[in-house]
């Protein structure tokens, strides 16, 4: 492997020392004065402090959103709403590099990904949904689709700005207003987005951003909102579904996954290896739809594993702001500890662990890309979502066995299929119990393409025409 000289990104975003809550178009501190720190996971240094929203702040934000929805945003013509969203999309594109660097600093993910994926895809989501705002009656959801009202939205730390865009863009396009809680460890780009809303002259109260942890989220779910949209763990999604039972609140959930990535013996192996690597090591494996279970046909298993290990040896783990970095920092000490725990159980249950020889920085939260072989379906590393750069490899003999193993999970978010045979792709895609199936590719996302799961991976879709259903009363 070539040694590359460091190639750090030089742009520095204008990060403030302190951020408030964004309510009714203005930043303000929490009613009870609570504050927390956001840490750079690649250095463990504090980046800034931010107000932590409590119940009173949630009530104020929901009230502001209600006023804005009833007086301004709801009655506004779709054309005008769309123009605000186009304006936001353009501002995001203009400030793309600042957002990309900020995201890498706060989240720990490589600049290559924030620059080429997270931020451009977030801008695309606003641009795409902007165009829907004056065309909702043509969306096939009835001739008079109406907004739901005020939406409470809770997003995870793995794609902070992108998940914000998946939540806010369709909600606003459909005439709703939002109160969004970013994840506790990654509030930065949501707060920069709040500043961007000010710059776009978005009417006050249409977008409200409330940083905080689980208690803030629970207060938002219990607040006077018409709908809750949540992306995160299955355990929290289940708790939210229970807590709104018997109410009039609507709910969409995008939860965990344990996706199978199936490699048949007639697959294009070079591409498949790239897809396996992308499937599990993209974003440090902090991806709900990660291809965390590799199912490889026995006859090609040795060859695939040999090529896979050779490829993983070339991955560069380190400084998220270095343009050559493939794998950045684990988002938090807590997540690192969960990955370590589950990895240890894998070895304890008899799976064989392999890691490339790579140096890790001394400070920060890091985990080597890890491949487990000899994995049985009963092992925890085959059943539980690890949410880290850890691949479990299982084998199969027949296509039926591959499908049975792939579907042997309470989750149903995504799946991958690798074969050169078109009819086998369609056969497998029809049988896989997953909301998204990638054939001869993996981890592709687009504003025009609905994303979401089945079973314990949740319900509802984000993106595409079908994603509008989540934000309309039809």
């Amino acid at each position: 492997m070539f040694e590359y000289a460091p190639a750090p990104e030089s742009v520095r975003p204008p990060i403030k020392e302190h951020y408030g809550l964004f309510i009714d178009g203005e930043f303000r501190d929490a009613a009870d004065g609570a504050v927390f720190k956001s840490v750079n996971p690649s250095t463990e240094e504090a980046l800034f402090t931010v107000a932590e929203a409590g119940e009173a702040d949630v009530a104020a934000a929901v009230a502001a959103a209600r006023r804005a929805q009833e007086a301004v945003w709801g009655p506004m013509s779709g054309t005008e709403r769309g123009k605000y969203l186009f304006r936001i999309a353009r501002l995001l594109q203009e400030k793309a590099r600042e957002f990309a660097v900020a995201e890498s600093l706060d989240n720990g993910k490589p600049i290559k990904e924030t620059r080429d994926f997270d931020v451009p895809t977030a801008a695309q989501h606003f641009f795409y949904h902007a165009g829907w705002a004056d065309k909702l009656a043509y969306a096939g959801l009835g001739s008079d689709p109406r907004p739901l009202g005020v939406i409470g939205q809770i997003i995870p730390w793995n794609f902070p700005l992108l998940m914000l865009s998946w939540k806010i863009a369709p909600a606003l396009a459909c005439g709703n207003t939002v109160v969004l809680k970013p994840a506790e460890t990654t509030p930065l780009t949501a707060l920069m987005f709040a500043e961007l809303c000010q710059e776009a002259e978005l009417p006050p109260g249409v977008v409200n951003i409330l940083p905080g942890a689980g208690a803030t989220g629970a207060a938002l779910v219990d607040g006077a909102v018409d709908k809750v949209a949540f992306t995160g763990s299955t355990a929290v999604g289940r708790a939210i579904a229970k807590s709104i039972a018997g109410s009039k609140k609507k709910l969409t959930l995008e939860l965990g996954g344990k996706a199978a990535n199936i490699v048949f013996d007639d697959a294009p192996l070079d591409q498949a290896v790239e897809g396996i690597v992308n499937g599990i090591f993209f974003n440090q494996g902090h991806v709900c739809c990660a291809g965390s279970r590799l199912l490889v046909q026995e006859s090609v298993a040795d060859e695939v594993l040999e090529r896979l290990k050779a490829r993983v040896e070339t991955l560069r783990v380190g400084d998220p702001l270095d343009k050559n970095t493939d794998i950045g920092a684990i988002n938090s000490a807590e997540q690192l500890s969960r990955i370590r725990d589950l990895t240890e159980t894998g070895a304890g249950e008899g799976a064989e662990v392999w890691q490339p020889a790579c140096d890790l920085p001394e400070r920060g939260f890091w985990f080597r890309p890890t491949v487990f072989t000899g994995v049985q379906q009963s092992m925890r590393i085959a059943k539980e979502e690890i949410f880290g750069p850890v691949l479990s490899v299982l084998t199969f003999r027949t296509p039926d066995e591959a499908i049975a193993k792939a579907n042997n999970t309470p989750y149903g978010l995504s799946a991958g299929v690798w074969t050169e045979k078109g009819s086998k792709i369609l056969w497998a895609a029809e049988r896989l119990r997953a909301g998204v199936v990638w054939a001869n590719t993996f981890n592709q996302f687009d504003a025009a393409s609905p994303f979401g799961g089945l079973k314990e991976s949740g319900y509802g879709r984000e993106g595409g025409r079908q994603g509008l259903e989540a934000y309309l009363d039809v």
Partner: protein
Amino acid sequence: MSDRLRVKKTYKLYVGGKFPRSESGRSYAVSSPDGTELANAALASRKDGRDAVAAARKAQRPWAGQTAYLRGQILYRAAEMLEGRAGQFAEEVAETGGVEPGAALAVVEAAIDRLVHFAGWTDKYTSVLGGANPVAGPYFNHTTPEPLGVIAVVAPQDDPFLGFVEAVAPAIATGNTVVVLASESKPLPALSFGEVLATSDLPGGVVNILSGKAAEVAPHLAAHADVNGLDLSGVADADLAASLEAAAAETLKVVRRPGKPGTSLDLLRQWTEYKTVWHPAGMAAAAGGAY
């Protein structure tokens, strides 16, 4: 008047294509609103619910795998069978509901027309709800609605026949299989509807019909891990509906709350979820994005 003794029907459950009694051996008396005793119906137990879910699960994959054309023809066949027995159903609707004969016949005719309506949807909703997505890259990308799987239904209490048919038809039209708890006090026409389905080439297990108490059986269906969707449109008690929804949340079932039904397309969409498939298009389309 003939003095011939009338042969009365034993109303039984419809599970897995067969007509069993409750495994519990229990039954309950069904009366008309004026108190006239009409018949005994099986009082379904938790175990009957479990058997019905198992039958529905076994039937789901083959049913969803049938062509949409065939599913449509089978639903249409059910309409034909019901048309032929409209008089008997009108009588049951009239007796159990205390409805005037003319109004009862209108209910049955409306149910027949709903079956015909949904028969015609089976090979259309996929085109209407799904489609090709113009993604920003060299990929073929398309979305299709797929059945959720097994749906447990608490059928409307006071609309015991048309409401029942309207709950069942869209769910099975979209390739789901169902376990339906008929109206507790007025189950007879729904139970007889099993005979219509059994003679319509509908595979056993696609529709399973139970009679009994919602408060007894529905909690087990709501908590059953092999049930994917829960239709509470027939639960009149708000507290029971809330507790069933909370039980369904444990395995993240899709829940339809009590309330008025939407359009027929809303009903079809209720028990489907979208699957999106990606494939590279063109020789230059490389696998993977990030590396």
